[in-house]
């Protein structure tokens, strides 16, 4: 029985149970995981297959939608030749600095604002106003103030990533069960102990929602920032490849961005699982 055979046979489970030979455990496991895998990624695989076929068969214009193998080889080529490495590095640096700054400022500020009603009430209208103003609309202002260099790019990303973190932290702190705080008080917990042992851990899941939103926003804003006045970066490469009609390279850069986004999200999910083990069904 070959590998493909087991996987493609619909009645594999049935034949496994009744088959005269015991299937190796690895194949049996694979067999059990296959339906779940297909349910999750089947549509993506179909889409990719359709893309490939449409492009090679000429159903769509292959110079606008090049076949996947061309895109992948463009990605591979630019990665192995090191052509894109500088761009990746500078892009990661820009969004990384901005994201870290947003975390370092947003979480503590949110924790304070969530607890101190007076500060929150005073700052809330201003925050709501800023939040409703698109960071992209403010980008020209930032360029005016900070110049066309790195600072304005990092700042616009920081600005856009700050709000999801700040607002979800405030929300998390405000939604802490007051009954738990009362319980802690009866056991002699002071303000600091209540903060450290009740408010902070209770806010962690909400903070992570903000972190994940912000990570996505950071990459979105990165591209926009790099399309204006940059000569390096993944966003610049997308624009540049399009100007020079290197369409496979353009898609390769877009693909790279998507992969970076997935990677950032995966890292955060992993961290969240580690920190919020108590909130998971099968912890």
């Amino acid at each position, binding site marked *: 029985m070959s590998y493909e055979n087991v996987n493609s046979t619909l009645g594999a489970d049935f034949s496994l149970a009744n088959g005269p030979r015991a299937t190796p455990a690895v194949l049996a496991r694979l067999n059990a995981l296959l339906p779940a895998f297909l349910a999750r990624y089947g549509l993506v695989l179909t889409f990719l297959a359709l893309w490939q076929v449409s492009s090679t068969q000429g159903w769509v214009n292959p110079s606008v939608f090049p076949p996947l193998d061309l895109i992948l080889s463009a990605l591979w080529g630019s990665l192995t030749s090191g052509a894109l490495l500088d761009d990746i590095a500078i892009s990661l640096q820009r969004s990384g600095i901005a994201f870290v700054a947003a975390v370092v400022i947003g979480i503590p500020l949110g924790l304070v604002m969530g607890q101190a009603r007076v500060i929150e009430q005073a700052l809330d209208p201003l925050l709501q106003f800023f939040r409703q103003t698109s960071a992209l609309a403010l980008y020209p202002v930032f360029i005016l103030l900070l110049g066309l260099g790195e600072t304005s790019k990092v700042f616009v990303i920081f600005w856009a990533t700050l709000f999801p973190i700040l607002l979800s932290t405030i929300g998390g702190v405000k939604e802490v069960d007051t*009954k*738990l705080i*009362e*319980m*802690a*008080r*009866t*056991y*002699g*917990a002071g303000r600091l*102990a209540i903060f450290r*042992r*009740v408010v902070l*851990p*209770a806010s*962690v899941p909400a903070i992570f929602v903000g972190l994940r939103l912000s990570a996505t926003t950071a990459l979105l804003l990165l591209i926009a920032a790099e399309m204006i006045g940059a000569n390096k970066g993944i966003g610049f490469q997308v624009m540049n490849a399009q100007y020079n009609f290197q369409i496979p390279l353009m898609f390769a850069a877009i693909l790279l961005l998507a992969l970076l986004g997935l990677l950032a999200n995966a890292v955060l999910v992993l961290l969240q699982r580690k920190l*919020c*083990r*108590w*909130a998971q069904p099968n*912890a």
Partner: protein
Amino acid sequence: MSLAPQTLRGEVTIRHLSKSFTLNGRPLPVLSDVNLQIRSGESLAIVGASGSGKTTLLRILAGLDTADNGEVLIDGKAVKGMGAERAVIFQEPRLLPWLTVLDNVAFGLDTRGGVSREEARNRARRYVHLVGLQAFESAYPRQLSGGMAQRVGIARALAVQPEILLLDEPLGALDAMTKISMQQELTRIWRDEDVTTILVTHDLEEAIYLADRILILPREKNAAPRLIEIDLPRPRDRSSPQFVRHREELLNLFGLH
């Protein structure tokens, strides 16, 4: 005030306690001139119709609310606010979802201080054992049933070894079967712990089953609260004639018979 300290441990005196809330701009009296002496090691149940102020009385005793008038004395000393000689068990278990059962039980020991982390865990382990959850020491609250979670709450309160345990309808949210088994368990636990217990409940049978005396708070604020002595050996038999007689007596008091 010259009595030896050991005879005073966990003794509560309530003097002229009054409390009103404001409802639509008018004062609504909840407690008026409550006087009571609770003996050391006694188990007192407070019953009353809703609105009789039983939970308010308990919250004042716990230091979570303040009285308008009157005072509470513990072991002869007037108390204000919360204190390490008291522990509260609420209707909801109020466990911290991010802590394991063991760490939840050790919570009060951690926050009140005075014992090392190690010692706190050791003592917590004893109380987890006492409430029969040793197999769930490292489980998280979301993995527990309602009855188990409440047992963790009870263990947490006992672990700080209070002189006075204040219980606010602790079994009110449990199903009938779990409730009865928890009542039996409480009887067993209290026999071994040297603690004064003050229990607010709306379950008359629970009051008769658990308490030495029952305080009945009237709905009318000018009527005086009544006290009933339950002098039955433990564990109590719910179907014994004396038990049934006490039940009828209480039902009559509430005009339900």
